[in-house]
């Protein structure tokens, strides 16, 4: 049995798929620990998990959209988070003595610790932001700017010269929680394993009024993440207007005050048990975060996607290309267009068939079990593969 240290970020969408993998490894008898904030991680990783405490630090608010969001993601979040957590990750490595590190692509401190101690490690991609490397060819100066940050962090950690490779990509293994049905064949890296969605059973939500759902009507979940009123661009109003004449029921994940006086066919809840709800859903309207996209498609539920930032536009484009959903503009889509889009994912047989196709491919990809298997393999390579050759960096 082997020892695995998970290094993630205090972001639910990032922790959830990794937590499913960690639970699988634990169930298989491996020793697993997390390096991170006890208060943040505990509800997500379960009462049994071992946590090497790194206190949570507040970060400045990030920009909401576009390149400004990309800039603040690095300058206000990834870089400062790496700097403040570096010592804690180091301590966790020394205390836990892992065989393998499982490191979120944006938790750069984990990559630096792996290099410092010469550990075998895997990069985990809970978003598609880095996986498709959108900036590499389209915006080379943006890509160079990210490499500059990584090089600075390398130096900050006291490591010599320059990073030997892109620190977002372990030379040993990359596990991504998506599937080739969405991404298409990846050109790089060679060591990427796409395991599909990694879902763990979550605590049941007994408060959710399941009996509100009328079994004779179709159901749509509208889940746009946490949107402040000033950044929601009236999207909820437009969405409520869009579903009004459709004779369907809509569950909206939003703070109740965002949608005052919802009509009878709209249920607004601050929290929604998405996985429990999935079997009842006919379509999902979402900003296109990878978790929502994968959770929906793992149930064969097609999507209308209105991407806002980060990897969401990439996911939306992939879903549209796979034929499993429709993409609309978050800022600009009009209620009529949104209504047509919802109608088409509800009615169009080709779209529903494509969503079913993605569900099948996800089922084959193996999810958390496949990811756990890959990590176990990394800790205990079969004979003859002990001396692993570091993989080449990107061309």
């Amino acid at each position, binding site marked *: 049995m082997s020892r695995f240290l998970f290094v993630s970020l205090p972001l639910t969408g990032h922790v959830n798929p990794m937590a499913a993998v960690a639970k699988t490894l634990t169930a298989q008898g491996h020793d697993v620990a997390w390096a991170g904030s006890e208060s943040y991680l505990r509800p997500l990783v379960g009462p049994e998990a071992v946590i090497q405490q790194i206190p949570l630090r507040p970060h400045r608010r990030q*920009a909401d*959209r*576009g*390149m*400004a969001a*990309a*800039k603040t993601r690095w300058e206000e979040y990834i870089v400062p988070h790496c700097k403040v957590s570096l010592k804690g990750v180091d301590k966790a490595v020394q205390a836990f003595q892992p065989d393998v590190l499982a490191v979120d692509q944006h938790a750069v401190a984990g990559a630096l610790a792996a290099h410092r101690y010469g550990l075998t490690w895997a990069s985990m991609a809970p978003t598609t932001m880095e996986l498709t490397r*959108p900036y590499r060819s*389209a*915006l*080379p*100066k*943006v890509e160079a*700017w990210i490499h500059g940050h990584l090089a600075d962090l390398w130096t900050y950690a006291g490591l010599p010269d320059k990073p030997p490779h892109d620190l977002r990509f372990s030379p040993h293994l990359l596990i991504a929680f998506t599937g080739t049905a969405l991404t298409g064949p990846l050109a790089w890296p060679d060591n990427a394993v796409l395991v599909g969605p990694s879902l763990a059973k979550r605590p049941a939500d007994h408060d959710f009024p399941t009996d509100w759902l009328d079994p004779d009507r179709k159901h749509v979940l509208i889940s746009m993440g946490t949107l402040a009123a000033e950044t929601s661009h009236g999207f909820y109003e437009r969405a409520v207007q869009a579903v009004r004449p459709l004779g369907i029921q809509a569950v909206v994940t939003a703070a109740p005050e965002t949608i005052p006086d919802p009509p009878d066919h709209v249920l607004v809840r601050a929290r929604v048990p998405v996985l429990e709800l999935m079997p009842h859903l006919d379509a999902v309207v979402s900003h296109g975060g990878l978790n929502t996209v994968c959770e929906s498609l793992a149930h064969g539920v097609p999507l209308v996607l209105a*991407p806002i930032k980060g990897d969401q*536009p990439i996911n939306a*484009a992939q879903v549209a290309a796979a034929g499993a959903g429709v993409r609309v*503009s*978050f*800022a*600009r889509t009009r209620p009529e*267009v949104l209504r047509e889009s919802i109608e088409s994912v509800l009615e169009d047989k080709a779209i529903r068939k494509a969503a079913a196709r993605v569900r099948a491919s996800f089922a084959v990809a193996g999810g958390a079990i496949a990811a756990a298997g890959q990590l176990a393999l990394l800790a205990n390579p079969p004979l003859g593969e002990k001396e692993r050759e570091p993989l080449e960096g990107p061309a």
Partner: protein
Amino acid sequence: MKADMNPAVERYYDTTLDLYEELWGEHVHHGFWDEGERPDAEGADRHTATDRLVHELVAYAGVPERARVLDVGCGIGGPALYLAGTLGCSVVGVTLSAQQAVRATEKAWDAGLAERAEFHRLDALATGFPDESFDVLWAVESLMHIEDREAFFAEAMRLLRPGGRLAIATWSVRDGALSEPEQELVDQILKHQVMPSFSSLPEHERLAHAAGFTDVASVDWSRAVANSWDPEFALIKKPEHGRATMVELARERGADVLGFFYAGPLMKKGFDTGVMTYGAIRAVKPTKMYQGIVALLRVVLDEEDGWSATVSPATTLDGDLELESIELAAFSRVLQKRFGPGVDLAAYVAGLEVDQIIALTLGDVAAFVAAARAAATNAEQTTAQTTAQPAAQTPEADGT
């Protein structure tokens, strides 16, 4: 009543011309002082302050040297002669007062600027000048006399060339509703000054926007100009303007003329209580290229007709429009289709740094497209010339 006010304005300025000139010199408008600066009781500072206001407006609105300027409400030509003289502009001044036009013309002759400054008795809304005949439309303290301000901005839009600038200084009122006594004060001022109404500075901005102007901004100069109504400065209490003189003036020129003497105390009260304000407004008529790319982007984004008026050259693609990468790519393809393969916005953006991408505006895109198109045209001409040369040499080659 609106159309009827012009004769009253005309009469007002015809009858007060000498009074204003004697009092304020050639600049029939407010002066401009720094915070805390006091006007000189001797009046020595009056010209400095009124000159200063003209300089401030030139700087604020970005009036370029040697521009073709239409001066709406030119008075007796004070600002116009500065623009024509120091800045080398060609100025056409219009005023409703024939007397003012005559006096301004005399002054232009005296200053040796008659070639570059001409003055006409014309209604600013019906000048008959051709479209796009001016680089700058300059209006210092004349807009208050024009009731139909919507028409004023529309006419300014017509008369300016694309890229041309609007430079306005005007009396204004505080934005928002006024109390009854405040409204009474305003009505008194309007009556005595022969003005139909005042707009607030934000209202002026809205009107400019609605007319299609871009880069619209205003600045509140109330505190900087308020000294103009200081009794020491305004010199309205001079003995020769005593009661007997006023009665005589009224008999000679009609009762309207007395409004001139009421202005001081009323305006002082207006400024002191913050009801009356004063400010400058600047705006730019969008270039054809800008209008063209906005029209294309509107189609790409599937926006409604009114959308174009909600953006300006200062609108950023990343932050304001929240343009997604696929929308940018589609915009780039449409631009390429319209302006030729040399105009590759996607490639241009690919060459930008993170901060440059965040700061990229519609104005930048218009400038890029114009430059890329010019470069492509030049390259074509060069190619045409080089390919033409061997063709011309062919007969020679044949001959040898």
